[in-house]
């Protein structure tokens, strides 16, 4: 008695971007469940279990260190430099790629059940964060071994990770909204990622790039700035300058806003795709 029932009025919807946000918050338990599902199923059938997340970036680092450390002899504590880059990059590529495949998986559901469409991309970022945090454990080990201990500046790390997550979410939403229409977008994106990775100083030190070109090759690469936010506190042990922080934050926020707006405006059409 006296209980107010929810009313759905298709005429009175708030704008899609606002509505998706409200619904995504309402469905936060679903997002939690999707992340849980991804993390659990990844490890349920593997012998190594949780250790696998830690081993992959470690393995990559090992191989690349052996191959390249001669080449980049001048780079101090190369394993730490390398691993910090790999972890940040793996986060970006995994979450954005997963956002696309999750939307495809969920697309079938969307034809039958109402769901806030952004949950898939958000859950992908959530899973990526879990994997990132797990990979920080062996990373800490590597830091200790190479005599590059954790400095107080590392306290800033959560901020860097948050900015990375915001950027990845925006990008994930953007590419998944395209991939919803054309399956080949997913393949094209993998190629783009590959090229982008080589343009970002993950494996090689910045000094490799000729000084004259450095400002625009690195400057125009949004991932470079976000990577620096993640790498500097760990590798150099000091805080990024306020300018760097502001630039990285602006990049992350802009990407998020663009991705959110584009995705939510198109979201209604996903269920219409025949």
């Amino acid at each position, binding site marked *: 008695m006296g209980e107010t029932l929810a009313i759905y009025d*298709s005429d009175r919807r708030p704008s899609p971007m606002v509505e998706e946000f409200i619904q995504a918050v309402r469905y936060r338990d679903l997002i939690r469940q999707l992340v849980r599902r991804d993390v659990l199923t990844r490890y349920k059938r593997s012998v190594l279990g949780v250790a696998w997340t830690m081993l992959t970036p470690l393995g990559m680092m090992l191989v690349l260190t052996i191959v390249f450390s001669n080449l980049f002899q001048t780079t101090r504590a190369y394993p730490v430099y390398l691993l910090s880059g790999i972890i940040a990059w793996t986060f970006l590529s995994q979450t954005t790629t997963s956002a696309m495949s999750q939307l495809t998986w969920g697309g079938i559901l969307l034809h039958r*059940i*109402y769901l806030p469409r952004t949950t898939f991309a958000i859950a992908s970022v959530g899973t990526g964060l879990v994997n990132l945090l797990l990979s920080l454990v062996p990373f800490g080990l590597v830091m200790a071994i190479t005599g590059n201990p954790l400095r107080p500046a590392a306290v800033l790390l959560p901020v860097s990770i948050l900015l990375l997550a915001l950027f990845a979410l925006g990008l994930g939403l953007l590419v998944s909204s395209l991939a919803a229409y054309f399956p080949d977008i997913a393949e094209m994106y993998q190629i783009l990622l590959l090229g982008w990775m080589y343009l970002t100083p993950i494996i090689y030190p910045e000094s490799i790039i000729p000084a004259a070109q450095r400002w625009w090759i690195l400057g125009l690469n949004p991932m470079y700035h976000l990577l620096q936010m993640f790498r500097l506190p760990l590798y150099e042990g000091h805080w990024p300058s306020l300018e760097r922080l502001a630039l990285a934050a602006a990049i992350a926020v802009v990407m998020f806003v663009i991705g959110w707006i584009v995705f939510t405006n198109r979201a209604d059409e996903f269920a219409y795709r025949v």
Partner: protein
Amino acid sequence: MIRLEQVGVRYRVPHERIDTFKEYAIRRLRGRISHHEFWALRDISLQIEQGEVFGVIGRNGAGKSTLLKVISRVLHPTHGRVWIRGTVAPLLELGAGFHPELTGLENVFLNGTLLGRSQREITERLDSIVEFAGLGDFIEAPIRTYSSGMVARLGFAVAMAWKPDVLLLDEVLAVGDAAFQSKCTERIRSYREGGTTVLFVTHDLGALQTLCQRAIWIDHGEIQCIGPTAEVVSAYAQSRP
């Protein structure tokens, strides 16, 4: 209560299927993408009162599923207005989102949150869901070890755990053995008696007449007849050769 005011749902289908982005870009550049419009629903106006059992009949492809989709918010109407008071439970996709590697218990939470329930709500009903599904110890085993009947029973148990204000039935009730089926019909009946509005899509005219007070006959996305079940059924029967 459900109210539809001149609701239309229009699909824009490209004349030729464009499967890849490359094709799309090429065609776009040449200015050669043409669509044709297909109205899955056209000018649908109706009002269903709380507690009614309302039947929906029509040929396949007539627009019945689209009507349910517009009511369950899967589709936003291209035209017109959909107004619904209360929660809508579509009994359309049992076991949606089930992941084969997760246990029955874990999947209950996944499926429940997919249907819009909170973690807390699911925890509260967990025992009764598990009991209703009647899977015994299998509830702790991964779903890939289940038979299809067991999966459907679990899906149904989760979907029917909460009394909705509006229940959408799309001929999905052929799950499980006779004992389970009677449990299901019993639960649906108890919800109905509790005031749940039921939309029943079926081809079974007999069931329609027994269960529904009013009905609608849809063809080509338009209302052909709406009113007391007997009227609608006879109009529908007369139209068929």
